[in-house]
């Protein structure tokens, strides 16, 4: 088991290394454009050259990469060219805000989609199964920005029930998070529900469930005691992998509701050419995605009774 964990962590480190190389090459291979982005368009050739020299940009590419990577690992993420403060100072509070949004979304998403998936899968082809399938197809067809607009039209413009923005200017306000969380959940729950349903339906076809039913056990007991245990292994992985999707979703949702999270930070940085912020945001996001994937892999191995370690 320890070997397996070490192996996974090794793979993860290797992946992060390659990702960092891609990010570095994509954003910093052209040092002239880096200088323009950092110093602004209205600078002379001479000023840019001096800046590049002072910051070691005339070193060979591989040396630049290693010193960049070393900076990253030790937490020196560079300075934002827009805010003129170290990137880490703005990144962590924004990440914390996004984490709040993400955790809330997961807290709604997980029970909802597991419940619906189990209900749909335990009687395949029944009315409840079909209804749940139709709803999940419809909700996954609506892009996040569109469902956001629909929700705003209904709950903000039509019913005046909820605030339309989530700026949190007057302190933390949970009602401002209702719509953003709803958008994330609406887009994602269909997929998790379908996966849970498939897993549940597969378990319901197995001989041991038939045995339990034929033994005369109440249907409830068959589901809760026999079916759920095995049916919920696959959804575990699916849910962990949703965190990767959520990191995309929050960008749209945060822009739509003007929420000061990591997604708006990345988007603003991308539109303003604030390259050190882009680098930091990307690396953090990929790290979260790769880490959750690693946990999903390990968790699956631990949960699956067919795989045993001696």
């Amino acid at each position: 088991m320890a070997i397996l964990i070490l192996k996974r962590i090794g793979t993860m480190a290797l992946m992060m290394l390659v990702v960092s190389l891609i990010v570095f090459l994509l954003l910093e291979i052209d040092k002239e454009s880096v200088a323009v982005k950092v110093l602004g368009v209205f600078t002379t050739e001479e000023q840019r050259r001096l800046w590049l020299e002072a910051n070691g940009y005339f070193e060979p590419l591989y040396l630049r990469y290693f010193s960049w990577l070393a900076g990253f690992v030790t937490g020196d993420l560079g300075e934002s060219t827009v805010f003129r403060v170290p990137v880490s100072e703005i990144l962590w509070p924004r990440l914390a805000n996004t984490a709040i949004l993400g955790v809330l979304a997961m807290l709604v998403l997980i029970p909802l989609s597991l419940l619906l998936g189990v209900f749909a899968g335990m009687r395949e082809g029944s009315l409840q199964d079909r209804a749940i399938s139709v709803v999940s197809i419809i909700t996954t067809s609506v892009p996040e920005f569109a469902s956001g607009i629909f929700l705003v039209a209904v709950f903000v413009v039509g019913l005046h029930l909820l605030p339309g923005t989530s700026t949190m200017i007057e302190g933390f306000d949970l009602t401002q998070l209702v719509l953003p969380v709803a958008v994330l959940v609406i887009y994602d729950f269909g997929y998790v529900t379908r996966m849970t349903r498939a897993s549940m339906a597969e378990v319901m076809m197995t001989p041991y469930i038939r045995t339990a039913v034929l033994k005369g056990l109440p249907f409830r007991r068959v589901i809760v005691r026999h079916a759920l245990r095995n049916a919920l292994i696959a959804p575990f992985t699916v849910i962990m992998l949703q965190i990767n999707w959520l990191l995309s979703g929050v960008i749209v949702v945060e822009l739509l509701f003007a929420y000061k999270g990591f997604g708006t930070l990345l988007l603003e940085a991308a539109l303003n050419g604030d390259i050190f912020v882009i680098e930091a945001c990307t690396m953090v996001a990929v790290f979260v995605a790769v880490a959750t994937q690693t946990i999903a892999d390990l968790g699956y191995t631990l949960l699956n009774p067919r795989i045993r370690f001696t």
Partner: protein
Amino acid sequence: MMTEQVVGETAPPSVVRQTVRSIGYLKESPVAVIGTAIVVFWSLVAILAPLISPFEPTATILPFARPLTPAPDGGRFLLGTDQLGRDILSRIIWGSRTVLIYAPLATFSAYLVGVMMGLAAGYLRGSTDSVLSFVSNVILSFPVLILYILIITTIGPSGLNVVIAVTFASAPGIMRIVRGLVLDLRNREYVAAAQTRGESAWYIMLCEILPNARGPLVVDICLRLGYVTITIGTLGFLGLGLPPPRPDWGGMVSDIRALAPAFPHMAVFPCLAISSLVLGLNLLADGLREISLRD
């Protein structure tokens, strides 16, 4: 139906007959019929755009008009106008062209690359497989929208670059699917027969394996078309899509994002358009899957 089956036993069915037969199968699933109807509807709108659009999509006539407002020189703004006074219905109609050109183009390009990668990885195995699988794992580890933002900000927003970005981001996923199918098919007798005949590896991959993997791939193409449509819309919404003034549905919403609470009609109708198209594609995919499972 009967005669076709009899013919099928004596001679391999032609491509035309197979297509006719699969359209016949489509009727068996109501879900697929609805999906097809929606997709055909939007395709017709895109083709007939110059004929059915009531106004020029870029003409600025009367700003902030609510739906059903009469236009100054005859006609009505059925869905209202935007902040620059452009007719929303006309922009949606012309916008369908943008979506229905770029989404299939990008999906096709991603499939070309993904299928090649998947065939090579699954059939050749060994180091080719390891390298291709590792590359796609790395690409897939990026949250997808972040990958798009990185690519588009590096190479700039344009139609071609959207296609490139979609290809780069989707090909690994397609590769995984194709690779899985190939791993299953590569040990079949007909592959062994082709190998014994001394056919080249690419002939076997493209002419023996690929046609037999098409069932699941057709379903995936529909799903992916829907997903690419969402992606193009979302990029437009984030301001990273196709440059204005070309109308595209995501871009229309992006322009008036701040005004949406005051003038919901400006945003709601383009959103309905994109959602219905994606729904059509997803229903079609679902119907096709249902039909393929039944056989």
